[in-house]
């Protein structure tokens, strides 16, 4: 490895911040915000600032497979301009089909260069799922299938970040019947690199920035939960930080979207809110620079950061459809039918008992009556 190949020759984040004309005050503001988002203590602000001041930027390769680019959109709209300007856009991103200026052969060259020059040091971000059906022809870039590209890029990565529900869980394109066999990347990664899942459709921009800043600051991946999501952002359910929660506890619910209760801002549970089953930071961080989030604008949470949310029941109902029993059937319809059938079976059995075991019952009764008679005498 030549000296040139080391990221140490790269400018630090702070140098880039200065070069872009941000003030020290802007920088500290950004650091404080990120530290808070990452759920760290106030004392960590200094640590984060120091890291950004002294650590050279980490090269990033950002791959786009089967997706809609809403993750990128969310990221560049992250509330603090430094996120888009410094972390991603101008400095760190060596390859991103959407955001880079280069295209075609040039772009592929740039990626190859980063991969060889910064082997073992770059972060691989993956947005979108990998279609494995029909030998991967559904998503090919520069003559290679997304599977091949992923394998090559992951082999030399320091860490892999799966952006969004597509890369983390397969998202909507892997919904039944999943014609392209869209597959989340954790099922495909062969290289032994740490993987961070950042699900959501899209994930919150600040969450994405937080994950990157964590990697930069501490040089290692953030603490993950059992399914591989950063605990700092995914350990609480939307329900746990929902401002409509008092209505839930009180038992006051919106029944239909245009009723009086909806106007009063009651809980959206009965119109299908998946907040109680969804792990995300929407209630705390909110969206669009902290303006609002779906529940605040009167829409139930659809559980976009949960695995299979598109197949696990309907969006605007609590009870879910039962496959194979008609669109209107849910578990309770089926249960009631089974209960009625059981009732009929039990009644039939009772009748059959009296017919088929007539002799037995007769003898028992006779025996009992006999005893009764004998007691009288």
């Amino acid at each position, binding site marked *: 490895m030549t000296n040139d190949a080391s990221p140490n020759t790269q400018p630090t984040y702070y140098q880039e911040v200065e070069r872009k004309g941000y003030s020290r005050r802007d920088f500290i503001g950004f650091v404080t915000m990120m530290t808070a988002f990452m759920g760290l203590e106030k004392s960590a602000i200094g640590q984060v600032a120091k890291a950004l001041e002294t650590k050279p930027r980490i090269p990033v390769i950002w791959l786009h497979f089967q997706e809609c680019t809403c993750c990128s959109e969310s990221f560049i709209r992250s509330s603090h301009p430094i996120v888009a300007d410094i972390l991603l856009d101008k400095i760190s991103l060596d390859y991103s089909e959407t955001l880079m200026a280069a295209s075609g052969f040039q772009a592929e060259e740039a990626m190859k260069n980063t991969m060889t020059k910064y082997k073992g040091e770059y972060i691989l971000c993956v947005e979108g799922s990998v279609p494995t059906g029909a030998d991967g022809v559904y998503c090919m870039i520069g003559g290679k299938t997304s599977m091949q590209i992923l394998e090559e890029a992951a082999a030399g990565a320091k860490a892999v970040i799966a952006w969004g529900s597509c890369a983390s869980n397969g998202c909507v394109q892997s919904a039944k019947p999943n014609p392209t066999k869209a597959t989340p990347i954790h099922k495909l990664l062969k290289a032994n690199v740490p993987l961070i899942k950042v699900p959501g459709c899209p994930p919150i921009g600040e969450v994405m920035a937080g994950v990157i800043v964590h990697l930069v600051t501490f040089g290692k991946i953030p603490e993950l939960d*059992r*399914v591989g999501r950063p605990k700092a952002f995914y*350990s*609480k*359910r939307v329900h*746990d930080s929902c401002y409509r929660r*008092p*209505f*839930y*506890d*009180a*038992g*006051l*619910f919106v*029944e239909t979207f245009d009723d009086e209760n909806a106007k009063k801002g009651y809980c959206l*549970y*009965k119109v299908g809110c*998946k907040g*109680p*089953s*969804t*792990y995300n930071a929407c209630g705390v961080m909110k969206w669009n620079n902290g303006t609002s989030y779906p529940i605040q604008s009167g829409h139930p949470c659809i*559980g976009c950061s*949960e*695995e*299979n*949310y598109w197949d*696990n*029941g309907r969006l605007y109902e*609590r*009870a*879910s459809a039962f496959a194979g029993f008609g669109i209107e059937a849910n*578990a*309770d319809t*089926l*249960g009631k039918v*089974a*209960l009625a059938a*059981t*009732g009929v079976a*039990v009644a039939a*059995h*009772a009748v*059959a*008992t009296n017919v*088929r*075991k007539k002799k*037995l*019952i007769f003898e*028992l009764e006779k*025996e*009992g009556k*006999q*005893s009764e008679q*004998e007691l009288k005498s």
Partner: protein
Amino acid sequence: MANKYLHIHRLRRVYVWELPVRFYHWLNALVIIALIATGFYIANPLAIQSQHEASGQYTMGWIRYIHFAAAYLFFFNFLFRLYWGFVGNKYANWKQFLPISKKFFKEMWYVFRMDIMMLKGKEHMSIGHNAMAGFIYFLTFIAFLVQCLTGFGLYAPMSTWWLPKLFTWVPAVFGGDILTRQIHHWSMWFFILFAVIHVYLVFYHDYVEGRGEISSMGGGWKFIEEEVFERNHHQTPNPEN
């Protein structure tokens, strides 16, 4: 005097269900009913109209509180029953529930023909559970397990205690809380159907056997015919020896 009663069955009192089993049974029945009732409410709460501020009432909160309190009782009661399967009498023994011997299968098949298909033949007279009942209770215990796993898995994020936290792996296995909750809901129907059939069959046995089946879960006694008693000192599906 004595020969007056000769044609009448001589019944011997057998202490079948010990007090801990009876206690377990009724606590279990009670909390399951509470769990089903509150579970239905949690799944589909009533549309209450209220003039009060949300802070003035706690309806959903209380219902869920009852569900979770009953859930803890249910869980520990279940653990206790498993324990009693090793230290209780032979009718409570774990071998009563597992189809692990040829005899067990033979008896299940026989009960199936006599009591379900209503074929004619010699009645099957067991003292504790018959093999079929034992097997159904085995399935019931599996449903208990499913309900505890999914329930505590869903409960874990609301709790700070280590015990529910032991179950955090459950939703991860099922791919998230949404599906876990649905499984929890679906398996509730097993309990409802079981309870209906079970209570019916208890009455059925009381009716066709005349040995005090219903009251056996009250006092613990069953009244077993002298002949049966002499034929087989402890007729159980998987005898201990």
